[in-house]
Each structure stands twice: as C-alpha cells, then as structure tokens.
C-alpha cells in the first residue's frame, strides 16, 4: 500500500503543480495578492507530496519489494543497506524522481524565504518554477514511472550495475542535481522578471544566493564525479571530455559567468539584459545536459541511463522551455530599463571581460559536444571529438582569462587604475615566474608546458592571497588593527579570494599531471614494477567474498626510493547477480600525490597484468574545486547590502561608455 500511496502522491503533485503554474501568474497580472499567495502554498504542498512519493520509493527499495519493477531491475536482496538506498537513484526512473524532488525542494525554499523576496517576484518565480515542475512530473509519470508494478513478483532482483555500487553514487548525483536544478530557480527568476518587465538591484540581490548555492553544489558534484570516475573506472584519468561530463561543464561555465554578472548588476545596476540572458542560458544548458544524458542520443560511461523512447519527450520539454524563454526574452528584454554606464578600466569592465571569455569557452565545449551528434544525424558519420579538440580550443580561451583574473580582482569599482592594479599583482607575478623557472631548471627535459602551467596556478593562488593580505594589512598598523580588519572584511571578499585560489590549485594539479607516469607489466608474486617515484612489489593474490560479490584481491608493497609506504590493495570483483566484473583501483595517497594500481587480466602462467601510475599533485585537481566551492559558500553567507563605491575619488575624466 505504501508504494501505491507514493504513486498517488506523485499524480496529486502534478495537479498541484498545475495550480502553482497558473494561479500566481494570474495574480501578478491582475495585481491580486490573494491569488499570488497561492504560489507559496502550492509550492510547499507540491514538495511535501513529492517527498512522500520519494520516501515510498526508498521504502520499496529498502524492504526489497520486488513487486515494483524498478526495484527488480536495480536492486538485490543481498545488497548492503546503503546501496539499497543509493539504488533508488542509480537508474533512470529513480534519478528523475530525485530530480523532481530537488526541483520542488527549491520551490518550497523560495516559498519560505518570505523576507528576502519581494512578493511579486516570488509569485512570478514560483509560477515559472511550477511550469517546469509540471513538465518533469508529466515526464516521470508518463514515460519513466518508478512505481510500475509486477505480478507475480520475482524471487530476487537483478542487482544494480556494479560500477555504480560505490559510495560515489550516494554523493555525486544528489550534489550534481542540486546544482543543475538550482539553476532552474535562477531561470524562473529571469522569466518572472521578463513577464513583469521590471528588473533592478532588488532582483539581483534576490537571485544571488540561489545562483551561488547552485554553483557551489554543481562545483562539488562535478569534482566528486571526476574523482569517482578516476578511482572506479581504473583508467587513471579524471576527465575524459565525455559528452556527459561536458553536459555538466557547460552549465557550470555559464553559471560561473552568471555569478559574476549578478555582482555587477547588484552593485552597479548594470548588465541587466545580459544577466537575464545568462540565467536563461544556464538552465537551458542544464536541460540540454539532461537531454543528452537521458535521451540515449549517445553511448558513454553513463549509458545506464539511456533510452531512446524518452528522447522525444525531453526534446519537447527542451524546446518548450528554451524556445519559450528565449522568445519571451526577445519580446520583453528591449522594454527593460537599461543600466548605468561604466568606465573601460574598472572592476565591472573586468567582469565583462570575464563573461566574454567564459561564454566563449562554454561555446567551444558546446560545439565540441554537439557537432558530432548533429553530424551523425545528418550524414550518418560517427566521429569522436576528444581531448585534442578541447586542448586546441578550450585551453587557449581559458588561459588568457586566468592570466588577467588577478588584475580584475584588484581593480576598483567604477574607476580603476590599471597601473596600480598591475603593481599590486607584480609580486605574485614575480613569484610565479620564479617558481616556473625553478621547475624548468629542476625538471630538465620534461614537458615544456607543465612548469608554465604550475606558474600560472601559483600566480592565481599568490595574487588571491596577496590581495586579501593587502586589504588586511593595508594601512593598518599593529596586530590588533589587522585582526579587526580581517574580521571586518566582507565575507564575500574572503569568498572571492578562496574561489580564485581554488582555481589556481586546480590549475597546478592539472599542469602537474603532465609529470605523471604510467607503467604496464605482468607481475608474478615477488616481482616489482616501477613508475615515476614509486615501486610496487606483488605480495599476494587472495580471494575474498563480499555481500554480493566475489573478489580477487592483490596486495602490493609500495616503496618510494628507500621509503617504505603502506601496502596497496587492488582488486577485481565479480558481482554474482549480474556476473559482471569491475576493477577496484588501489590508491595510496602520499601528501598531495597518489600512487595508483589497477589490475588487468590474470595470465595463464599465474601472473597478473598491472597498470601502475605515479600521479604527482593529482589531489590538487579536486582540492582546488573544494576550495572554490568553499569560497562560494563563504560568499553565500554574506547577506550585506552591496553598493559599489569607487576606491579613489579621481577627477571624472574617465571615458564613459554604455554598459550593454
């Protein structure tokens, strides 16, 4: 009965969402507050119903109710409890329900944030959000129903895809979905502003926390997914330019541009139309990502989700929301009041430069992802666009952006002083050059670009630190004064410094991967294999039995030169229900570096094929992302009222130009 209650709750939620989409909108257009106040009530009701539905599905998985079709297809009675729960969203139907759950959760949060939102904006936003909810609830119910029943119930399930039986599945999709879906709120805000025809600093202030929240979670979700692929797939790589990864990178890039442009909008009341467009594009890219992953237009490591049947439905949703909002934009945007004017050398101009570069980078990823699909559709030729394309297009766009980032960070609002800014980043630049030179001297004959990349990363980290340092030390004297200045600095300033330093850390990690080395060999007991700084010696291979798998575990001794480190265990598992093998890479973390062992096939003569990597500073790749997300979180907690104040009052000689 619980299952059926969950099913009914989902159908009921669709009805409530229809009301949420229609009534508040009517209220806004008629200036009727009573109708508008239905919005929050409907959003909260809708969330409660979907939550009930999700809870019912979780209970079906936990109790191994094999009369539910998705439970049979994705779960097994011998799974440990945690994987029974994660199996809920380890498949198409359940993950779409999780998507809708998060969507309605955001709706409920908007409904509850009564004090920070103007009532009119809130009603419009909830209506737009209700429309998105209707579309996705209909999609779940009509094409991907997680509550379909089976009679008679089979004796046991078919188990979850073994690659997904990992803690990564407990963390990665929820984080990613909060990110994706969080941008639906920004989108709803943009649509509401367009319908209403009013957009100002109040709007920017209202949108800012939601954008930051979505961005923080998307950052963490992408980083977590990357680390998961790194240790689970056993290839030793952490980013494959796989279309599914690109699908998450595109909204991230657009979202990054968005959080920067909303700052300009809040502080300077400018860049309005562009910000609205970005908000629409960001969620459109999220939807595009959903389409790419869920429709089955491509086969990739995420192909567990593919089903061509559903493609058309999602394509319909995509066309309606992207096309509809862009049409609305074309119609209403010219009516919006243009923003203020600003000088070419100023923080806001620097942020425009940032937006241009990021938008271009996003476009290159977009082309690289969609071009092969379109080509295949038109000509039937299958081509794959891989790292060479992105190295040749994405990287050249990103590097100049990162080079000017420290400059923009120190420029003042309204009227900046380029020479002064250059002086302020000079110290960081010199430090970066020194580090790069030292590395070139030290690693003679190694990859050429790696030291330069590390130098760039050091430049970013150092300039972020120096910038915050200067603001703390500044003109103050004495520890007491410095401390109080550090406390007094807005948290968003700290957030900026952390986020930019995080970018630097990631850049260092990526650059350092040029020094990683790989060794492949067939080892028998007692034999050794060296890669980079590390050597492994095969100690033993023993069988082991898990709750729903059998494994052959290989133990290796690990040494770095004379230093003996903790032993590494790598294993090959066979999940019995699906008779499907997986590899579990053995990883030893040594400072920020890792030694990585993946097992290959067992050989007839008793040896086992082994791939062994030395990955210097690899952890920085993800640590940088975590630091970025932490910076975003710090900024999120800063609810000050912002207004740009020029740093120095200079004569008004600067050339003034329109913002858009």
């Amino acid at each position, binding site marked *: 009965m*619980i*299952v*059926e*209650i969950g*099913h009914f*709750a989902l*159908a*009921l939620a*669709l*009805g*409530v969402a*229809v*009301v949420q989409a229609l*009534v508040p909108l*009517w209220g806004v257009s*008629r*200036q*009727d507050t*009573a*109708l*508008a*106040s*239905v919005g*929050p009530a409907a959003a*909260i*009701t809708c969330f409660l*119903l979907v939550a009930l539905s999700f809870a019912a599905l979780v209970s*079906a998985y936990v*109790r*191994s*109710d094999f*009369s539910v079709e998705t439970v049979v297809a994705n779960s097994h009675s*011998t799974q440990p409890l945690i994987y029974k729960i994660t199996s809920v969203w380890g498949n198409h139907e359940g993950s779409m329900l999780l998507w809708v759950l998060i969507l309605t959760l955001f709706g409920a949060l908007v409904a509850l944030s009564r004090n920070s939102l*103007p*009532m*009119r904006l809130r009603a419009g936003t909830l209506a737009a959000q209700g429309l998105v909810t209707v579309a996705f609830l209909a999609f779940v*119910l009509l094409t991907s129903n997680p509550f379909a*029943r089976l009679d*008679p*119930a089979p*004796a*046991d399930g078919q188990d979850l895809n073994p690659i997904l039986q990992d803690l990564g599945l407990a963390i990665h999709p929820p984080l990613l979905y909060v990110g994706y879906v969080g941008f639906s709120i920004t989108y709803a805000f943009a649509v509401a502003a367009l319908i209403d025809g*009013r957009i*100002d*600093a*109040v709007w920017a202030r209202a949108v800012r926390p939601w954008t930051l929240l979505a961005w923080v979670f998307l950052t963490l979700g992408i980083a977590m997914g990357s680390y998961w692929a790194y240790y689970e797939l056993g290839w030793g790589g952490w980013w494959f330019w796989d279309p599914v990864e690109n699908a998450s990178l595109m909204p991230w890039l657009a979202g990054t541009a968005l959080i920067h442009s909303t700052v300009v909008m809040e502080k300077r009341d400018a860049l309005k139309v562009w910000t609205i467009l970005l908000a629409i594009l960001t969620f459109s890219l999220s939807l595009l990502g959903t389409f790419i992953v869920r429709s089955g237009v491509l086969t990739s490591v995420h192909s567990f989700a593919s089903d061509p049947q559903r493609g058309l439905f999602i394509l319909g949703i995509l066309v309606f929301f992207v096309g509809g909002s862009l049409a609305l934009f074309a119609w209403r945007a010219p009516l919006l009041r243009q923003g203020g004017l600003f000088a070419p050398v100023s923080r806001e101009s620097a942020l425009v430069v940032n937006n241009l570069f990021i938008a271009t980078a996003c476009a290159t990823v977009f082309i690289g992802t969609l071009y092969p699909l379109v080509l295949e559709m038109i000509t039937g030729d299958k081509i794959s666009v891989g790292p060479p394309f992105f190295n040749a297009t994405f990287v050249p766009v990103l590097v100049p952006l990162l080079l000017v980032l420290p400059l923009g960070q120190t420029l003042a609002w309204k009227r900046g002083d380029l020479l002064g800014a250059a002086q302020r980043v000079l110290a960081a630049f010199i430090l970066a050059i020194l580090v790069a030179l030292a590395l070139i001297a030290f690693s003679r004959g190694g990859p050429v670009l790696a030291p330069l990349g590390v130098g760039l990363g050091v430049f970013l980290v150092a300039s972020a630190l120096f910038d915050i340092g200067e603001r703390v030390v500044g003109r103050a004297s004495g520890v007491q004064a410095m401390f109080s200045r550090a406390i*007094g600095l*807005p948290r968003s300033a700290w957030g900026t410094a952390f986020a930019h330093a995080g970018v630097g850390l990631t850049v260092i990690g990526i650059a350092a991967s040029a020094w990683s080395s790989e060794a492949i060999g067939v080892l028998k007991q007692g034999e050794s294999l060296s890669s980079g700084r590390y050597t492994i010696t095969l100690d033993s291979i023993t069988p082991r*039995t898990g*709750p729903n798998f*059998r494994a052959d575990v290989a133990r290796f001794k690990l040494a770095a030169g004379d230093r003996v480190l903790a032993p590494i265990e790598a294993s090959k598992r066979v999940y*019995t*229900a699906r008779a499907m093998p997986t590899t579990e890479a053995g990883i030893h973390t040594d400072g920020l570096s890792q030694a990585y062992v993946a097992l290959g096939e067992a050989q007839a003569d008793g040896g086992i094929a082994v791939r062994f990597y030395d990955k210097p500073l690899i952890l920085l790749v993800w640590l940088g992302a975590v630091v970025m997300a932490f910076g975003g979180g710090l900024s999120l907690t800063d609810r000050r*009222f*912002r*207004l*740009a*104040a*020029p*740093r120095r009052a200079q004569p008004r000689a600067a050339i003034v130009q329109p913002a858009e």
Partner: protein
Amino acid sequence: MLIWIIFAAMTGAAVFALLWPLGRRSPDAFADTADAKSLYRAQLGEIDRDLGRGLLGAVEADAARAEAARRLLRTAEGEPELAGESEPALRRRRAASALALSCVPLLALLLYGALGSPSHPDQPLSARLQSVPSQQDFELALARIETHLAANPSDGRGWAVIAPVYLRQGRFDDAARAFAAAIRHDGTSADRLAGLGEARTFAAGGVVTGEALQAFSEAVALDAKNPRARFFLAVAKEQDGDNDAAVAALRALLADAPPDAGWTGMVQQRLESLAPGSTAGSTIASLPAADQQAAIRGMVDGLAERLKQGGGTLPEWTRLIRSQLVLGNRPAAIEAIATARQRLGQDAEAVAQLDALAGELNLREPQP
C-alpha cells in the same frame, strides 16, 4: 477500500492547502516599491556601518551615498497603480478555488487511474519469506538457494540440496554441475555419483555416455547395492546391445530390493520390455540411439494423441508432461499442462497438483 480513503484524505489535504491562502485576508497591494526603497535604505545604513569600521573612506562613503540616493529617487518614478475594487477580486478568487477544486483531484485520479494498481499490495521480501508456503514460495526458496550458492560457490551441502531439484525440473546440465560441485566440496557418496550419472544420461538425451558410465561405476564401487546406479548400468548394457546381461542385472536388482522400495515397479516394467517375447522394449533397445529416441518419441506422441481425444487421469497427464520434458519438448509439456488443467478443471485437487507440478518442473508460462 482503505487505500481509497487514504487517497481521498490526501487529495482533501492538498486542495485545502491551496484554498487556505485564498480564504485569508491578504495585503491590498504588492509591497514591491517598498521593498526597493527599503533595500536602498539598508544600503545607506551599510555605508554608514562600513564608514564606522574604517572599511570605507569618507570621500568614498559620500560617493556611495550619492549613488544610493540616486537609485532611491528612481524607484519612486515607477510606482504602479494599485488594484482595488473588490467585486472582480472576489470573482477571481472563486475562479481560482474552482480551478484548485477541480483540476487537482481530476488530474490525480485520471493519471493514477491510468497508471496505478490500487489493488496490488506491497510485497516486501521479509514478509514473503515468512508467509505460508505456497507454490510460488518453492520458486522463491529455489532462488534464495541459487543466490546463496552464487555468493558461496564452495557450499557443497547447498549444491547437494539443489541438485535433485534441478534433476526433477529437467535442468539436466545444471543438475550435473550441481552434483559435481556437491561431490567436489562436500565429499563423494554413492547417491551423489548416481545422481551425477543420471543427470549426464538425461543431458545426453537418455544415452548412458562414457562419462555417465564412469559415475555409475564409481557409485557402485562405493556402494555395491546402490539401486539407481545399478539400474542405469543395466540400461547401459541394454544400450550396448547386451540384452541378456541387462536382464540379469535387472533381475539381481529386483532380488535385492527391500520390500517397501518404490522403484521396483519401474524396474519390473523395464525388465518386461526386455524379456524375450516382449516386442516394444527389445526392439527399441536394439535400435541405434537416434532411432531409439524416435521410437520413444513415437510412444509419447501416441499417449499424447490418446489423451487429446478426451479423458485421461491425473497420473496419465503427469506421465505425459514428464515424458515430454525428458524428451526436451518444453512447449509440448506446457501445452499438456494447459490442456490437463482445462480437462480436469472440475477437480480442484487435481488442478492444485498440476500447479505444483508446473512449479516443480519450472513449466509455468512466461511471466508477463
């Protein structure tokens, strides 16, 4: 019934939550301009605080104040006219209430009615395992043992339990594997070796192959009296064309049989078919293997034909079903079960036994 009461309560609660704000007194107009004004006032306050903390110089603070004041003035320009009159507002509320009252229950019922299965109870695994054994639980138990064995392939006892079940179900290759695994992990015994031989024999379409013969010989070496092994050794002799030796072996088997042995009838039958004068058996036995198969098939087909004409007792049907399965003709066995169920429909007990047989032999129609 209970579930419909719950659905009605859920619908009622949802609709009430939507109607509630419509019934309350709400502010006469959107307070948005006030929002904008308060934002800029708050900004002015923030500037003063920053000035106090020394984060902002006096000159910068003045500039910022001027900016905030400029924006504050601008918000005052576009004050929207207020909506006031109450008669249309009242009608709008009624329309919205009607929408909520109709759209929510209708959509939910329509969708759930098309997609849901309200009469389908939950079937959590723990409850199914505790419920009264029925035919389906035989499969459940079998599946549990299979899962257990998949995870613990060295559990010889488990294999020993499941092997005869496979044999009865006609899954002869699985049965042979299971017997072999039981012998490997839990030690050998005459019964297990004989079972292994039987499984191999049936897997080869009823011919005692060299491998099967070896198993039977080892079984007899362990326990000279093992009836099953001795029976199949006799069949092997018969298939070699040595009818006399076969008859002698079967006679010896009968002589050793305990009085309550259930298998004497079958040995007797075989013996009669071999005895001089009996036509069917001996002729079949003297044929080459392929023809033997055809001859047996002919007999089974004859039985099938006769039962098709009408009548037939439960034992006859059972024999036909089992024979079809042994001959590897699964569809015919399934068809026979269906016909038998139709024919014996009056007799509830017979139908129950047929169902049990179907479950045991894994012959239930493919699940929808």
